[in-house]
């Protein structure tokens, strides 16, 4: 009576151990679909560049992530590549430790030209994609919060509660942006995020997430014009081990955020058909 159970358990353990192995490049990663349009992303010369000063601080010594201006991440279509769709992407290449389903999903999404991207349907881009998307944002620091306000993607906000103990509420409702708790480590704001719904994509290319996603974000203003962003993606439901992506975000002095409402007269997403063959007539 006991033997079949033991054998069954051993088999199950073997299968689940196999499932946790990262995929070793087989099947291969889908290829970069290439630039949107010829000339896309070519930087225009907009006159003299601002000169960076030292990173500012608040009167109590915390790093100051604000001021008269806004942060602009630029278009970084792929967290794991330095170039994507013809333009600069993340700061460094990462060999992503995919689980089989996330590799399949990633390849399908890339080959489908990201046609099912939730962002195109005006759903929240989620974290960390905010920091890789071509929409400006600002960070407003109060004594116990950092409020992120975003121009793009339906004019969203995000609140990071500052709590050095780093405790998340129990029984979190799964959300797009998760529950974010932060603290300052010297000049770095460290944010711990859990409680995701597993629906958001990590980037436009299509790196998937599960509801086990746990992020550690590190924001460091290295000079007045530069924000170094580093995020560790720890998602045992999607990746075999944690991996880290990064981006360098530029300060645009004097920039103010405009209202941008994605859902206003949204008629684009139905035209996104990816690489599907045209419907038979």
């Amino acid at each position, binding site marked *: 009576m006991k033997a079949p159970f033991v054998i069954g358990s051993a088999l199950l353990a073997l299968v689940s151990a196999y499932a946790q192995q990262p995929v070793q490049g087989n099947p291969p990663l889908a290829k970069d679909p290439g630039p949107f349009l010829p000339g896309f992303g070519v930087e225009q010369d907009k006159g003299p560049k601002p000169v960076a000063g030292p990173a500012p601080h608040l009167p109590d010594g915390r790093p100051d992530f604000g001021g*008269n201006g806004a942060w602009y991440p630029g278009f970084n279509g792929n967290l794991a590549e330095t170039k994507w769709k013809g333009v600069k992407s993340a700061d460094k290449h990462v060999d992503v430790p995919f689980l089989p389903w996330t590799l399949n999903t990633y390849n399908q999404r890339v080959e489908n030209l990201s046609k099912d991207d939730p962002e195109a*349907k*005006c*759903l*929240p881009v989620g974290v960390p994609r905010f920091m890789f998307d071509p929409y400006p944002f600002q960070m*407003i620091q*109060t*004594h*116990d*919060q950092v*409020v992120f*306000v975003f121009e793009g993607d*339906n*004019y*969203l*906000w995000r*609140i990071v*509660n500052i709590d050095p103990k780093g405790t998340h509420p129990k029984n979190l*409702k799964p*959300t*797009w*942006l998760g529950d974010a708790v932060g603290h300052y480590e010297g000049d770095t704001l460290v944010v711990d995020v859990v409680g995701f719904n597993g629906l958001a994509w990590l980037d436009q290319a299509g790196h998937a997430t599960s509801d086990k996603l746990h992020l550690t974000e590190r924001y460091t203003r290295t000079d007045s014009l530069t924000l170094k962003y580093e995020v560790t993606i720890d998602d045992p439901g999607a990746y075999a081990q944690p991996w880290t992506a990064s981006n360098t975000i530029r300060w645009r002095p004097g920039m103010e*955020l*405009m*209202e941008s*409402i994605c*859902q*206003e007269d949204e008629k684009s997403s139905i035209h996104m058909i990816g690489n599907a063959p045209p419907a038979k007539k």
Partner: protein
Amino acid sequence: MKYCFVIVALAVLHAQGQVPRLADGHPDLGSDGVWLPTHVADLAPNAAVPFQGWAKAKFLANNAMKQNDLDLRCLPPGVPRITLTARPFEIVQTPQRILFVYEGGAHVWRQVWMDGRTHPKDPNPDWLGDSIGHWEGETLVVDAVGFNDKTWLDDAGHPHTERLHVIEKYTRTGAASMKYEVTIDDPGAYTKPWTSSSSLSFRPGEKLAEDICLDKISK
């Protein structure tokens, strides 16, 4: 009898508590908590609204066709309606601007410039408008223009045009209470400005939740 009244009045004052203040002396409009507005479905349930003819017809049509309400399609509710729905919001004060961060509506935020600027000459028609503010004693006065004509002023369906000019007055009357007064000045829809008011209660220590309207309709 007289003393009884005084004692009751003092007790009420004590329960309401003092209005907290920022270092610069202005009322603190809400560190450490969120505001919950009283739900106001109709800005003028009993009052005679100075409608222009077309606006009266439009109001009756909106009121009869609630399915045309863009709020149901997850678009921002506009001003003042966003302060009339029973969904909490947070006020974040900085010297240059005051941010309103809303849980309800479309997960949007709004900024009120406090740096002395004027409205742009030809503002984009926005869902939440262009807002500038100043202090009149204890009251934050917000002046907003630059609206599109797509939102309703309230659930009942009071319409407006792009000429809408809204003056809002936020007065924190105690630790747990705020008075909200709004003037609707829209020469495209009404023959003269008209006002309404409501109240909000403070929820100390509470946080905003994430609520994505599209989650409910895009499945």
